[in-house]
């Protein structure tokens, strides 16, 4: 939970990927949703055997809103020794995805491992992978609403209804006849009844945003 004393210091960068410090960790390329599949196919043909990871980032202030990030690794299936592996090449493909129409073609036809990764991005960001054989939620419950890793999704989730509960004592304790020290059962029951009646809306309010 964010600290209530100090407000967050937000950076000014709406697109940090444009301000990347010169770090030579991979070949980096930017494409859009229309050309990403052709580019991935070409890269696979070039020898990028592994789709190491597929994730997404939400930049609400930017157009296109989302980045789907593909991390590829060029690792031959015959590399049986450390010397044969050497330092494999890495490739990072950033695919801009429109916020209003978040659709990307699936990469499951090229790498089987894209299956769960794409489901997770769909679940947590709401980006739809066209052609995915089994696109459903993977981390959140299947009836969940919203996509939690979007920046406009509140940290504590949407306000939800909570079952009415007396503010001073648990009803079950009262019914079980276990009065706290120094109070009679009748007095406690009266107090609970009064609290339930007086509470605005009949129940304590959740302070969630």
């Amino acid at each position: 939970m964010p600290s209530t004393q100090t407000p967050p210091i937000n950076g000014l960068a709406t697109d940090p990927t444009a301000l990347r410090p010169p770090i030579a960790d991979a070949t980096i390329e930017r494409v859009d949703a229309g050309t990403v599949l052709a580019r991935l196919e070409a890269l696979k043909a070039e020898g990028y055997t592994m789709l190491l990871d597929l994730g997404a980032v939400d930049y609400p202030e930017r157009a296109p809103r989302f980045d789907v990030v593909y991390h590829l690794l060029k690792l031959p299936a015959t590399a049986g020794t450390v010397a044969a592996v050497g330092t494999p090449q890495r490739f990072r493909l950033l695919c801009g995805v429109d916020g209003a129409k978040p659709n990307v073609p699936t990469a499951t036809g090229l790498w089987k491992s894209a299956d769960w990764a794409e489901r997770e991005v769909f679940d947590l960001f709401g980006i739809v992978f066209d052609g995915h054989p089994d696109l459903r939620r993977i981390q959140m419950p299947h009836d969940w609403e919203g996509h939690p890793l979007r920046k406009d999704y509140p940290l504590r989730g949407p306000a939800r209804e909570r079952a009415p509960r007396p503010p001073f004592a648990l009803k079950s304790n009262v019914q079980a006849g276990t009065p706290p020290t120094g109070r009679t059962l009748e007095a406690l029951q009266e107090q609970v009844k009064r609290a339930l009646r007086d509470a605005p809306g009949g129940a304590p309010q959740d302070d969630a945003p």
Partner: protein
Amino acid sequence: MSLSSTPLTPEIVSHEGNAMVLSMGPQHPSTHGVLQIMLEIEGETVLKAEPEIGYLHTGIEKSAENLFWSQAQTVVERMDYLAPSSNALCYVLAVERLLGMTDKIPVRANRIRVLQAELTRIASHCVWLGTGCIDLGAISIFFYCFDMRENILDLQEAAGGARMHPNYLRVGGVNGDLPEGYLAKLDALIAKFPGRMKELRDLLQANPIFQDRTIDVGYLSPEDALAWNVTGPALRGSGIAYDVRRAFPYCGYEEYEFDVPTRTEGDAYARFLVRLDEMEQSMRIIEQVRAKLDEPGPVMVDDTKVAAPPKETIALSMEALIHHFKIVSEGFRVPPGDVYQPVEGPRGELGFYVVSDGGNRPYRIRTRPPSLYNLQALKGMAPGAFIADLVVQIGSLDPVFGEVDR
């Protein structure tokens, strides 16, 4: 009846052939946490397996976006709860690269980090071996393994103050030097280790029952391993010698001598042998680190914008007090940019794709969880296997659900 893409139902009666759908888990003891597998079976043979994950989803990536850079490390450590220092190492390396201070980290800090990462690898493999053998009915292995793990947790506690999540690594170094008496405990562990490993090997390696249960079970060809994005011991068990410590060295791994154990059989037994060999190679690295730890030196980067000044200077220097206050009250800022940092965790390539917008909190931390991808390979591995072998397959992939679900 076949598995469909609609939400799972508890229906288990099949109408198609002799096949039926069975839900295994999420409370099944051999699923190493909360894994549910929807199985389509005919008799004892699995026709299709669809793992259902997410039961341990705690939104760590979302929480981390709302914490300071230094606070986020504590939640990141809780992803792979069997190897917290590996996660922390990956995270601090990523942040340090964004800060551009990778080369400024003191040598001693890097050595201590390597020590922590390797200790945590042995501890994690101890849990894998102990629980994996329980699945096969070999209960006593568990006690040998957890005894050794307990020694390592003692060391973690001595260094960081907590057994399970020491949070000892820091952006810029480690949190204070190793305490007095630590090296003596470490020496005791180094002395005990070879005998313990010999016991484990004697009990298992040539054991005909163990071999019957693991040889030719859960075969993964090198091509399939790459297609399923399997890394770590599972990939090396299939004959590909990819180890991030060798391919993309970090923290001075270049200066240590160790082998990358590789087997070509690609079955559960090969993965078992790779992990046992790996524990011994880790200990080899630890011995080399230990030899260099007598040499004193700083363990934190000399940069008061990121590293809080030592406590004793606060009472004497106004400057130090201000820096300390700033770091504690609003954290440090990280220049904007994005970076992907891999490390070799106990389960494979653990990576963090970290994005900073220039603020004092991470803009986004995307994890590349090795457990998630390794577990996904079960979909390719399970069809045709017996249910009893499925248990061995899960154990040989060594998933940790804190990391799969995050």
